[in-house]
């Protein structure tokens, strides 16, 4: 197997891309997808570590992340749909009524 560093490095790169996506994009759906990308990169690191340490726990954690991500997407997209119904936009900058 390749050194785990490779996978962890790739995971870090994907994570940073996700972070940048969250900060720069205004489209709520893309922000959401960036978050999924970050979760996914974390999963990749989990699986890589699980392989290195030969511990199934890492893979089980990925399993949990999958399940929670699915739940998150279901609720998040439902939120987005209902926001779109009231605001007619999914630009997160338009959703700023909660400011001080």
């Amino acid at each position, binding site marked *: *197997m*390749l*050194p785990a560093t*490779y*996978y962890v*490095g*790739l995971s*870090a*790169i*994907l994570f*940073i*891309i996700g*972070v*940048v*996506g969250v*900060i*720069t994009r205004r*489209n709520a*759906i*893309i922000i*959401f*997808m*960036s978050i*999924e*990308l970050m979760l*996914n990169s974390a*999963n*990749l690191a989990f*699986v*890589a570590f*699980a*392989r*290195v*340490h*030969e511990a*199934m*726990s890492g*893979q*089980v954690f*990925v*399993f*949990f992340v*999958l399940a*929670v*991500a*699915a*739940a*998150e*997407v*279901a*609720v998040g*997209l*439902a*939120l987005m*749909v*209902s926001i*779109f*119904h009231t605001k007619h936009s*999914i630009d997160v*900058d338009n959703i700023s009524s909660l400011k001080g």
Partner: protein
Amino acid sequence: MTLELILFIILALVAVAAALGMVLSRNTVYSALFLILNFVTVAVFYLMLNAAFLAMAQITVYAGAIMVLFLFVIMLLGAERIPGEDKLPWQKPLAVFLGFVLLVETGYILISRSGILPPAPTAGEGFGSPEAIGMVLFNQYLLPFEVTSIVLLVAMIGAVILSRRVK
């Protein structure tokens, strides 16, 4: 250069390119497609890491369910593009800068401490198989597993309530 390394480099490039494409695309549908591509490549990485079950679950759940849901919502809302201009123009360069700093930092960590991770042993028989995952999941992690099922149920109910039109 082994065959595995070549495969890794190609897939890593595809994955990074897909991630960048996802972030940079103007059109949300393209973003979603790039993300699917990224997920599929990650699934292949899972296969390389002896996690066949997770690879299949990754494709089924992420590509098959989550991303379909994304596409569905994008098409339903007709929100492929967002009009108007950025109200926080200074944020974009700052974000790129921060991302770069973070990259340098992690790169430094990975390079300076690469020896910290032990070399991977040969994967044991049945490592990553459904049986192995099941054994761990239903013994060690039974309570979290059940809690997850409740989380999913709550999310399902929440999604139904949220997307219901208020009369």
